[in-house]
């Protein structure tokens, strides 16, 4: 039955998309009735930076350390997703499945130890 497992997720998705639109709509209506102010001003629409005029944009280069952690996350998160199916049925499998999972986690742990040793986990 399509509606019955993820169909409800779809319903909730629809409501979740519509729900934030509601206050936006109310806000717009208030504007139409001149209750909510809408007075554009060049200074008001300036980028905020503690009172001084912002020099240049912020879309420049960014420190690479964030990238290192993002890489680590992608690797570990994908591996963890592979562990989920094993976790659900592991107790009914033979002990060899545990050994295989242990090897799998061991490789992960080795990768973590390697990253640690190389200083990838240090925030510099």
């Amino acid at each position, binding site marked *: 039955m399509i*509606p019955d*497992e*993820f169909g*409800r*997720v779809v*319903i*909730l*998705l629809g*409501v*979740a998309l519509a*729900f*934030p639109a509601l*206050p936006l709509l*109310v*806000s717009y209506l*208030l504007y139409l009735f001149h209750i*909510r*102010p*809408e*007075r554009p001003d*060049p200074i*008001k*629409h*300036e*980028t*905020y*930076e503690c009172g001084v005029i*912002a020099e*240049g*944009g*912020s879309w*420049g280069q960014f*420190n690479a350390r*964030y990238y290192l*952690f*993002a890489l680590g*996350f992608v690797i*570990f*998160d994908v591996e*963890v*997703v592979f*562990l*989920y199916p094993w*976790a*659900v049925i*592991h*107790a*009914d499998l033979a*002990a060899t*499945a*545990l050994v295989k*999972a242990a090897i799998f*986690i061991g490789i*992960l742990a080795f990768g*973590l130890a390697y990253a*640690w040793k190389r200083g990838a*986990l*240090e*925030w*510099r």
Partner: protein
Amino acid sequence: MSTEIFGFDGVNVWVDGLVRVLLIVGFMTVVVMGLIYGERKILARFQQRLGPTRTGPVGLLQSVADALKLVGKEDLRPRNADAWTFELAPYLVFVPVFLGFVIVPFVLDWQVRILELGLLYFVAVTGINIVGWIMAGWGSDNRYAMIGGMRAAAQGISYELPLVLSLLAVAMVVEVPSDSATGESLRGSLNLNEIIAAQAEIPNLVWQPLVLIVFFIAALAELNRTPFDIPVGESEVVGGPFVEYSGIRWSMFFLAEYAALLIMSLIFAAVFLGGWAWPAGLFQDDPWPRWAQALLVTGKAGLFIFMVFWVRASVPRLRIDQLMSFTWKILLPLMFAQVLINGLVLVYDWPEIVLTVTGLVGVLVLVMAVDRAVRHPRPRPAPATQLEGEAAS
């Protein structure tokens, strides 16, 4: 079975689903307003203040007044901001949190829909809101917002790992009665109803004390609550990704934040404290009546929320290098070890007390690691040659 509630028997599934969803929307909005008021009141008490008192009796209408004010405020967008990213970001923060409500079991047989892959679904959808944070940070074209967005991303993804692994560890130990004829039972489930039903007599907190603590810490970080609030720290990045938002869009971020707190508390109550089943299962085989179950769940979720507020009132903000070291060097290895131990104990049918003992040893290790870090703090890392997030030009 689930369509019998509230006389929905025989009602079109779509209508039934819609009614449930709308009920949850209403419930969530009211609870979020209550939570905002509750947080201000409780935090005020911790700081020997009174908190809101003027609006309504003992300030009860404060959240309503705030909401009205926010709707009536001008909806500003900085000239340099990227229009699409800036205006869509609140959606991407809000919608994933909302989607998580599908699997939350409020009482027995009452939820939008129990999914067989419940916990996996939960971590999958709630992980998306990091994208919204980055969009808010990037779209604002503001340095504070950019730094905040980047920090939110770094912290969000780093603490996602212990969170996902802790839920995995719990999913492993769940005992599911499978075959009534042979009386055999299986281990391992991601279905929240089965997870709760398995805890009727002894909640998971007994078997997995370490996992409970790691989940709590990771949840604090995922929710960007103190002491893990560096992405939004007012004294450093003046609100982080939200700095350029005002009025109704800003309130959406707030709504999402408290909705996320609510859903985390409900998941915590379900996964570790036995949701509606424990301690009812100790006294009788049948579940308690629905109102009593609802009270149980509310109490357990309330406990989690109160602890979050309590931590916020007691612990100062961490530095980003401390924060990243903590999850990658302490929480993540501990969780890998816990998953392996769970596997060993369950495959070889060792007595379950081994789980408790190893869990407590893990808690001890965690406490000692934190204690050592507090007593011998690492020096602050040398300032980088260019400011964090600063353009090279």
